[in-house]
């Protein structure tokens, strides 16, 4: 069974803001500037799945440059020091943190998966029977970044991309 999710875009935006304040922009000089463009391009993405009282996915997607910048900020490294592994670990943890906070807003009984990271476009992802229900879309230092929520339909409707 899956309930209607009560987490809306302002909740997601608040979580994203906390992530920026804690890890990506602790000095408060480089916020995510909203674009409201859910079709903005991405080159890498990460996700966690939630099952139980609500079933769906929380997905981080961005350009490779933004992912590299995120890893550098997260791990306190210089940009040129960031490896693929650093980028992958950081994207996984970002999805995990936002996913965990989403889960906390759901009715009891939800379970969070371990994160999955794909160093390829979000459009390459397949979430069967899922549709995007909300998201925060923005530019971070000129690079596209988004965090979105995908709800899995309990009836067998056509697949979302």
């Amino acid at each position, binding site marked *: 069974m899956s309930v209607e999710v009560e987490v809306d875009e302002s909740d997601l935006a608040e979580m994203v803001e906390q*992530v920026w304040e*804690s890890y990506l922009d*602790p000095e408060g000089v480089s916020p995510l500037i909203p674009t409201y463009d859910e079709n903005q391009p991405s080159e890498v993405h990460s996700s966690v799945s939630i099952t139980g009282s609500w079933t769906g996915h929380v997905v981080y997607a961005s350009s490779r440059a933004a992912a590299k910048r995120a890893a550098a900020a997260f791990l*306190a490294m210089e940009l040129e020091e960031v490896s693929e592994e650093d980028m992958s670990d950081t994207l996984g*943890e970002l999805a995990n*943190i936002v996913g965990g906070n989403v889960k906390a807003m759901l009715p009891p009984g939800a379970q969070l998966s371990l994160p999955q990271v794909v160093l390829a476009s979000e459009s390459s992802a397949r979430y069967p029977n899922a549709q995007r229900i909300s998201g925060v879309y923005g530019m971070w230092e000129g690079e596209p970044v988004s965090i979105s929520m995908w709800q899995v339909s309990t009836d067998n409707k056509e697949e979302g991309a």
Partner: protein
Amino acid sequence: MTPMRAMVIDDSRAMRMILKRIVTKLNFEAVEAGDGKEAMDLLADMTEVPELALIDWNMPNMNGLEFVTKVRADPRLREMTLVMVTTESEQSQIVRALAAGAHEYVIKPFTEGAMIEKLALLGLVPTGANS
């Protein structure tokens, strides 16, 4: 004076690096483990038990709650201060962790300042380490 030691237990290497950076800044010697089982194995081989463990909840092999329960059941480890550092922020989960024996609970995302504040409240921040 022997520095205090902290064990950082998280399956995310990125999060371990962040936590390690914070505790090192506070003059702890840091030891890393990728899950509760690895942490228990490391503890079994240690002659001196770390003063502090920062523990994620959701990890493969042995999760953070299981780790806390095992540590609390072992008299040799009873002096360890256990801090859960997790995205599990439901009240019921916090109560479970504290009931199992965790001393403090830090919800991700956290700022460095918030983490240091928690450790200071536990009396684990050496004088002058946060200046």
